[in-house]
């Protein structure tokens, strides 16, 4: 565009604002992170954006438009509902059901004792076994979960953090027993401990040993499990805890920078592990903001990897992400309204260029989803994939004055936050100082006040309410799961080779006390059917435990 055109457009915009819009009354809108949204965007708002440098082409630096050149024309996203509950048997049945319905990847939800490294018979596990995910006490449970599922043909994501190395070892062993080598496996472990300290809470070990476990996994997988995504750095839970869209990306990138630094400090080459970094974010209600968020994140991550870390492999620059629609946006009131919310959020995720997606089910403000509700949610993805034309071209929102302007503004705001965290000494130091937690809490409280004052409309909850009967037909987890797991554990401990268990755990202890990679001894312990709790206890004794703090 030539200079004169821009000047003319600026003049015309001024005129329109004064003579046309100015004669009407209208509401001023602002994003949650304080940007005033203009009533109208024009080419004037994108004049500082250089197409070739800032936007570019799909599959090329800086990847603003997409990580892959053909995007959904080449391959649709992986439809991957987050699921798992009760026993390994029930979860195996749910997975087979979802795959029959056209789901294309698995995402394993583990119960809280598993996520915190307690066996089902631990006193702190009482009441929690099988509730928010499937209970895994040993390799035997993982064998059941994946029974009859060909692991070389599926990709599996596991939401597991503190004991990620152990669950990964179990997965590799199940595959080996199916006759599948580790080099053929596709999947992801979350393995993102920093956000457990800030918002999610399933930590076990202190920061130092936790980072060692993570970098040991990076190193091991770069040699033996090359297609595995070794970390899935998570903004999802920060957003659920109240972070704004800008904070979500900023704090997640700050965590990521900490992990990359840890990998480099452990002696790894950045291009050896950076291509296996993956992400999970939260796709919330503000449609355009969500699309711009993902475009900004792609561009900024590419710059961080190239400019800050000197990565030279284009795959290290590439931001590939999984997203789930926002659980916290679902209402318990008039739950069917959530079908609509999920559909819009799913659409935003796809227009934002997601590689993998879990859509929530409408009943999830009340309980774990039923077969019917999760199928409807999967169908929502399938309708967007096949019926409405949004997958027919790459980044169809690119070039919109509003989207491009918002993308740039978000990138700037995210960069400011990352600078602030750098000044505090990086993400781990910022977490220790409580900075990230405080920022998220402030946003959560501000949001709540807006909802309660009616400034933010939540349909069916603070507006348009109706008297409604109690919801029916919700999923209930069998209260006997705990007893079933404890019985299985007892049997396991009488049938396995207990001497082998002891010798492998001793070998693990010695490795933990030294500096060698922890994966090989963990794999040996897993193969001997050492339980998750026994294995974590050895590491607890050597590493100690993280002490959580909380300030309000």
């Amino acid at each position: 565009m030539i200079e004169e055109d821009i000047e003319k457009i600026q003049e015309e915009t001024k005129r329109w604002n004064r003579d046309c819009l100015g004669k009407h009354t209208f509401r001023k809108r602002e994003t949650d992170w304080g940007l005033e949204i203009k009533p109208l965007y024009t080419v004037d708002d994108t004049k500082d954006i250089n197409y070739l440098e800032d936007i570019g082409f799909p599959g090329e630096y800086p990847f603003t438009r997409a990580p892959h050149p053909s995007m959904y024309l080449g391959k649709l996203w992986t439809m991957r509902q987050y699921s798992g509950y009760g026993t390994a048997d029930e979860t195996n049945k749910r997975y087979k059901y979802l795959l029959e319905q056209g789901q294309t990847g698995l995402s394993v939800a583990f119960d809280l004792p598993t996520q915190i490294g307690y066996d089902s018979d631990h006193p702190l596990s009482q009441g929690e076994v099988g509730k928010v995910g499937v209970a895994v006490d040993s390799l035997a449970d993982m064998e059941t979960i994946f029974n009859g599922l060909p692991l070389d043909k599926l990709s599996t994501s596991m939401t597991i953090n503190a004991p990620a190395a152990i669950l990964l070892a179990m997965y590799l062993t199940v595959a080996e027993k199916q006759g599948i080598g580790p080099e053929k496996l596709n999947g992801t472990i979350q393995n993102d401990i920093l956000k457990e300290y800030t918002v999610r809470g399933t930590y076990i070990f202190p920061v130092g040993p936790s980072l060692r476990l993570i970098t040991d996994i990076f190193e091991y997988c770069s040699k033996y499990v090359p297609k595995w995504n070794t970390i899935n750095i998570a903004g999802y839970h920060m957003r659920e805890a109240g972070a704004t869209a800008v904070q979500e990306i900023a704090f997640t990138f700050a965590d990521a920078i900490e992990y990359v630094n840890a990998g480099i400090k452990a002696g790894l080459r950045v291009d050896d592990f950076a291509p296996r970094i993956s992400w999970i974010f939260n796709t919330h209600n503000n449609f355009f903001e969500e699309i711009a968020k993902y475009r900004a994140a792609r561009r900024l991550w590419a710059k961080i990897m190239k400019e800050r870390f000197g990565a030279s492999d284009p795959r290290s620059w590439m931001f590939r992400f999984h997203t789930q629609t926002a659980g916290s946006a679902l209402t318990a009131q008039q739950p069917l309204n959530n079908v609509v919310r999920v559909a819009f959020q799913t659409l935003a995720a796809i227009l934002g260029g997601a590689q993998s997606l879990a859509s929530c089910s409408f009943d999830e403000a009340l309980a774990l989803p039923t077969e019917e509700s999760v199928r409807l949610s999967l169908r929502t993805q399938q309708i967007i994939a096949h019926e409405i034309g949004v997958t027919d071209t790459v980044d169809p929102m690119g070039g919109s004055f509003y989207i491009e302007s918002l993308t740039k503004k978000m990138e700037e705001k995210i960069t400011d936050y990352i600078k602030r965290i750098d000044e505090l000494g990086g993400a781990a130091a910022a977490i220790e100082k409580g900075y990230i937690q405080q920022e998220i809490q402030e946003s959560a409280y501000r949001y709540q006040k807006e909802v309660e004052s009616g400034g933010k409309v939540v349909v069916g909850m603070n507006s348009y309410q109706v008297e409604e009967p109690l919801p029916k037909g919700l999923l209930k987890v069998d209260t006997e799961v705990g007893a079933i797991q404890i019985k299985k554990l007892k049997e396991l401990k009488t049938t396995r080779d207990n001497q082998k268990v002891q010798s492998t755990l001793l070998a693990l202890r010695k490795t933990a006390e030294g500096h060698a990679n922890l994966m090989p001894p963990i794999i040996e312990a897993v193969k001997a059917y050492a339980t998750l709790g026994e294995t974590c206890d050895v590491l607890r004794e050597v590493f100690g435990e993280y002490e959580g703090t909380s300030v309000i």
Partner: protein
Amino acid sequence: MNQDKRIRVLVAKPGLDGHDRGAKVIARALRDSGMEVIYTGIRQTPEQIVDAALQEDVDTILLSILSGAHGFLFPRIMELLKEKGLGDILVLGGGIIPEDDVPELKKLGVSEIFGPGMSSQTLINYIRENLSQG
């Protein structure tokens, strides 16, 4: 109770559940309304919660849980409160607790269960009304 004394509240997260956005938001709202609020932090055992209630001499305990373990944890907390002679503390629950489970929890002495979407003013009013009656 003495109207001059500020209401003392323990906001507690029993069990292994780490979701404490709601607990923290409620804690801030109650504090802003003039109450004294103590937050336990996440991953508290029933014993830790009851000890904190005793030491802090609270008038009410708010239990926030989203993991589905209320069926074990709430009865245990109520039992310990009675054992320690704290049976007169007003106990309220919040989080994701199915309606079907509410009658059983009320039978144990939990005064009320609040679900998602409740406004903090509703809770503040409930606490003030029920403590002044007590």
